């Protein structure tokens, strides 16, 4: 519409395009820089074994972060994921131990089911009773941890059946099972958000709940479902983590909520809701995972690691910042 003027200055137009690309893919660029730097810094970084490692390490946080993307897109937050993960882990674990372990698929589904249930409780309190998401899920963080300790009597549950452990330790055609699960979750989440009506509704609710309501979108159900999905994914992550650590740990998942939220936010999804995508969340999770892996590979001492890790996260987002800066 106002093309006459904008084409007046081709140099500016090109610069504008560069800025647009940067603004759209800034965080991807940051990731690429990090990745290339680590490839040069350590000869094993690019080895298949290490890349497999990184992906497997990222999978737990990645699954949580994908659920968190849904929740944050609706304008909410879920602080309870770490505790819910632990709860689902001990429930699933308790089924596949002892003399007569249950079918691992059953335990798998039980873990996810418990997570979905806890998520549903969060969802009802937030969507129906309008309690702030921060408070509800902070309360749940505490309650689910208490329930976990109570259920497991505060002790790890060892001796899980080998079939169950396959979910964490197995391989399918050379690819670790957690990575496959993560990839599936990502693909489904991506398609749902991008191509389905439900996905549109998630964005609409977070972008402008009033407008969504006026347009006849069942806003409560959408919000409710986002927390339920998050809960189910926390359950899934709990099952995988349990299978991977070979015993169900009641203290698992401490502080995981911050990592999951960090992946989402580093990816550029706005905490206010309505803007973002799981693709960027994936990049965010990979950045976090690659930093940890790289610094461990390089043998950087723990204290410096924390400093460097914090700095890299800020710088990565700084590279990306133009996307969110107010004009």
């Amino acid at each position, binding site marked *: 519409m*106002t093309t006459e003027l904008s084409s007046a200055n081709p140099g*500016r137009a090109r610069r504008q395009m560069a800025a647009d690309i940067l603004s759209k893919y800034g965080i991807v660029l940051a990731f690429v820089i990090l990745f290339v730097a680590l490839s040069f810094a350590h000869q094993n970084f690019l080895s298949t074994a290490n890349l497999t490692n990184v992906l497997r390490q990222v999978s737990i946080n990645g699954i949580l972060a994908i659920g968190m993307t849904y929740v944050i897109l609706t304008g909410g937050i879920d602080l309870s994921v770490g505790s819910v993960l632990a709860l689902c882990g001990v429930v699933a674990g308790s089924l596949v131990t002892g003399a007569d372990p249950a079918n691992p698929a059953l335990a798998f589904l039980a873990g996810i089911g418990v997570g979905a249930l806890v998520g549903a409780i969060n969802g009802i309190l937030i969507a129906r009773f309008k309690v702030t998401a921060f408070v509800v899920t902070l309360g749940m963080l505490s309650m689910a941890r208490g329930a976990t300790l109570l259920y497991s009597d505060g002790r790890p549950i060892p001796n899980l059946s080998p079939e169950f452990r396959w979910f964490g330790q197995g391989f399918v055609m050379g690819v670790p099972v957690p990575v496959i699960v993560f990839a599936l979750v990502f693909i489904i989440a991506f398609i749902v958000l991008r191509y389905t009506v439900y996905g549109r509704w998630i964005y609409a609710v977070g972008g402008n709940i009033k407008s969504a309501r006026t347009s006849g979108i069942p806003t409560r159900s959408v919000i409710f479902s986002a927390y339920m999905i998050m809960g189910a994914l926390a359950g899934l992550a709990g099952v995988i983590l349990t299978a991977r650590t070979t015993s169900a740990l009641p203290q698992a998942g401490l502080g995981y909520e911050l990592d999951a939220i960090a992946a989402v936010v580093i990816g550029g999804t706005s905490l206010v809701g309505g803007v973002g995508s799981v693709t960027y969340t994936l990049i965010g999770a990979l950045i976090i995972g690659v930093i940890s892996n790289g610094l461990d590979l390089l043998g950087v001492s723990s204290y410096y690691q924390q400093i460097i890790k914090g700095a890299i996260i800020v710088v990565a987002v700084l590279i990306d910042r133009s996307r969110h800066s107010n004009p």
Partner: protein
Amino acid sequence: MGYELDPDLLLAATDVAKAYSGVPALIDGRIRLRRGSVHALCGGNGAGKSTFLNILMGLQKADSGTILAKGRVVRYGSAAEALADGVAIITQELSPVLDMTVAENIYLGREPRRGGWFVDKKKMVADAAALFARLKFDIDPRAQMRHLSVAKIQLVEIAKAISRDSDILIMDEPTSAIGEKEAATLFAAIASLREQGVGIIYVSHRLTDIFSIADDYTVFRDGRFIETGSLADIDRKRLISLIVGRDLADQQARPTTARGETMIAAEGFSRDGQFEDISVSIARGEIVGLYGLMGAGRSEFANALYGNGRKDKGTVTIEGRPVEIRSPTDALAAGIAMITEDRKETGLVLTSTVSQNVVLAALKRFARGGFVSGRREAEAVDAQIKRFRIRTASRHLLVQHLSGGNQQKVVLARCIETDPKILICDEPTRGIDEGAKREIYAFLSDFAAKGNAVLLISSEIPEILANADRIIVFRRGRIAGELPAAEASQDALVHLAS
């Protein structure tokens, strides 16, 4: 109270009441909407129109009252129910999902589907394009909503409501943000909807529009039903007096004053893609009008002048001295105040009270040693509430609870509290009722007469003709011409602008 079952009666509401914290917003809301008619709902700012309409739509709950839609008693619990029942609304406060595309906004909640679950994007965009073509709106369905001007957002909301094919359509000030050309297109659309038997409730403070498109009128005042009838039986003057509750004198033509020395001169303002080489100067005592079609770049220029946006080139001198304006803080320090175009986005702090908003830009005047004097604040705010007849339960009411027009008055009051010598007004009478408009015009005239300068941006040609001394016309980011008000006419302006 029995209703005769009139098949032509689409909607009948009686005794609708609503109070907030015991303060009534609506006492006795009534309307009878006939099939295939346009029914103008009139009333001053804060009369309860929006409250009433939101209740009809299920967006708010009434305390009491009966609503009959298409012969059935209804009580919509949500907008979704109303929509399903064939009632649609364009709300006064635009509330688009900014981070979606135009097409997605239009089909929000009823996306065309493929395979049950998936959004058929192609169809959605095609449908939207067809809709715009039918309505003659020049909007790209794939554009990001965030990048549209307020006017276009308003058009999208109009298109969205119309596309629902409902038989009751409520429009709460649909033209407050758009230009004459777009308004004309809207009226054409309204006419064709009426042909199809749709009943339209139309709210506007532009009486000229009402007389040209509406069949019936209903007037509310202070939350009460006053009168209803056919527009054919009433003249403009009487309608105004019903709305305002007293007789208004005819507006005085603006006296031609002598131009003093130059107060402010903007030279060579440019911003790539938006405006190019704009020079405007305003003398003491002068009101300069800025006219242009939607998207001509007037707002962008005014904001740049105020330091509220980047400019690539351009200098400003005030009373002959060059000043550097990099931010609104600089502008205010130089004696410039601005009423921005979008009161919700850039004007008000909705989560604060009326009082806090009114004094916000001039806090230092109310403070000693960093502490705000509550007494002086209260005095000043009460004076402003009185001066502009701001209808508010108290100065401590959150400004988000004011009616649209009253919110606009708060913005105006805030600018005046800064005691400026140059006032930039970007569509200052958006959503303001006829009575208050007169007061604002009188104020501007008076303000200029005291040796101050005013830059008045308006898309309402009568407004600009009646109030400006000199009119500058923008076309696609450039100055297309300049006319003394005395020589200007509707045709001349439109000709220059397009």
